[in-house]
């Protein structure tokens, strides 16, 4: 077992070596521009792209013509929201989304608010799920887009996407789903789920960083959007720019591997995650699971360790790569807005750790992690004035803190 251990696969994943293998020829041998129509370099590159397009469409139940390549899910989310608003502005100017979306959706929605679009940020329940009923009730005659994520990146909770898709279809509203954490991990089918636009990216599924896709439905209904990037009309006019062929080929292979290995991999992942959960929560008091206990991604675990702060905990297990919802670990010094949306108190938000298991983790790494976490939490609780007060029977909520 090698150190450091990587348990932050919700943040990014290593490339699968098989993905790197198929990419390499496209850097120095098949390096042509896929838009070059007149020579073999271009034709070879185009073949690589179109093959990847098919592999990617296949894993989501779409047609290859419905896949637009972008620089990543962030760009796809931007394109979906901005592109729809620009195209359908005359029909209406209201968007429905949720409070726990990724910043790529929330920040874009906030930008659109400044441009006069009204946005409803639906609340989630205490396990992080948005309800299809709430979506239905939020629809007005000005609504032109619903955007709900498939699975949350912090707490792993999976939303009832198919139910929401039904509501969207019934009301004739375009439904966008940010499926970045779902594709390749759980079964996704845009037909069955009633999805009209979908964002996802390669680097979450053992592919390279810098490449993502936006699924854009062509039938029933035909979704149109205004591009954000002009210059040559690539990707059916929706996203101009020379395609990064090597990255796309890698993305295609990553998607194919996920499709082939999803069933066995998700079973193995869930087993390791359940062992990690039981090993940690079974051995300590006052540890709380954040997110839904069963409707969650197989590899994700998010736990709050009361009386202990997240960044200090990460420092205590620095040979294991994890992440935290603590303010100290965020660029803005604010605790996780996702945990706050669940109703988790700020103190527990500061005490949360996200474990993201992946394809390359082993049982041995899980056992090591359990052991190190137990030791680190114990060490920090010994140093914690809050743990001391709690053990003395003091109700921390009743204390007058001298905050500055």
């Amino acid at each position, binding site marked *: 077992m090698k150190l450091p251990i990587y348990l932050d696969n919700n943040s990014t994943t290593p490339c699968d070596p098989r993905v790197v293998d198929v990419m390499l020829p496209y850097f120095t041998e098949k390096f042509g521009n896929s838009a070059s129509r007149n020579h073999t370099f271009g034709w070879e590159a185009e073949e690589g792209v179109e093959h990847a397009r098919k592999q990617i469409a296949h894993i989501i139940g779409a047609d290859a013509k419905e896949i637009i390549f972008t620089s990543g899910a962030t760009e796809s989310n931007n394109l979906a929201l901005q592109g729809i608003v620009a195209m359908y502005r005359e029909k209406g100017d209201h968007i429905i989304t949720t409070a726990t979306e990724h910043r790529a959706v929330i920040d874009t929605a906030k930008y659109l608010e400044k441009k006069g679009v009204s946005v409803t940020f639906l609340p989630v329940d205490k396990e992080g799920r948005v309800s299809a009923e709430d979506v239905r009730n939020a629809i007005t005659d000005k609504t032109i887009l619903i955007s709900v994520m498939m699975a949350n990146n912090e707490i792993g909770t999976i939303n009832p996407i198919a139910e929401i898709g039904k509501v969207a279809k019934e009301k004739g509203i375009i439904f966008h789903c940010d499926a970045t954490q779902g594709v390749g991990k759980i079964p996704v089918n845009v037909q069955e789920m009633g999805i009209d636009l979908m964002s996802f990216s390669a680097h979450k599924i053992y592919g390279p960083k810098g490449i993502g896709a936006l699924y854009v439905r062509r039938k029933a209904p035909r979704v149109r959007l205004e591009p954000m990037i002009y210059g040559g009309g690539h990707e059916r006019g929706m996203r101009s720019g020379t395609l990064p062929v090597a990255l796309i080929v890698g993305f295609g292979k990553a998607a194919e591997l996920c499709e082939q290995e999803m069933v066995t991999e998700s079973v193995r992942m869930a087993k390791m995650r359940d062992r990690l959960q039981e090993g940690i929560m079974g051995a300590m008091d006052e540890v709380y699971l954040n997110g839904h206990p069963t409707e969650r991604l197989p590899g994700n675990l998010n736990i709050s360790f009361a*009386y*202990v*702060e*997240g*960044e*200090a905990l990460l*420092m*205590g297990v*620095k040979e294991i790569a994890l992440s935290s919802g*603590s*303010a*100290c670990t965020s660029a803005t*010094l604010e*605790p996780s807005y996702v945990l706050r949306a669940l109703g988790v*108190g*700020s*103190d527990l938000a*500061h005490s949360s750790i996200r474990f993201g298991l992946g394809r390359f983790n082993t049982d041995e790494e899980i056992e090591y992690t359990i052991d190190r976490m137990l030791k680190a939490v114990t060490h920090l609780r*010994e*140093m*914690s*004035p*809050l*743990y*001391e007060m709690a053990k003395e029977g003091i109700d*921390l909520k009743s204390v007058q*803190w*001298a*905050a*500055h």
Partner: protein
Amino acid sequence: MAYSEKVIDHYNNPRNVGSFKKEDDDVGTGIVGAPECGDVMKLQIKVENDTIVDAKFKTFGCGSAIASSSLATEWLKGKSVGEAQKIKNTDIVEELNLPPVKIHCSVLAEDAIKAALGDYQKKAEEKKPKVEEVAASS
């Protein structure tokens, strides 16, 4: 942003973790911060003849907060109450190489020191009149 060596050292080998009895006359206790902010420091000093003979801390906070309060207890030991007032957060920042985003941890440590000193001095003030009363009545 890798953690600084000194901060890691204070995390792995914290100096003076623990508690004194808050009620003791020779103990000054300062508790600053709030759980919602992710930072709570409890700093205690034991004073004999105006000299801080021992200090203890407990902190809920990140590595830099733990290191700042641990360092504070190291510096407090052996100082007079007057000298201890002079400890500045900037000294802590320099000693631990704290990056700008962690400066507030050192500020909280300075607040904790002042709160502990203030608590001790308040107790010392309250002790005095009782002695005079006893002398007057005898």
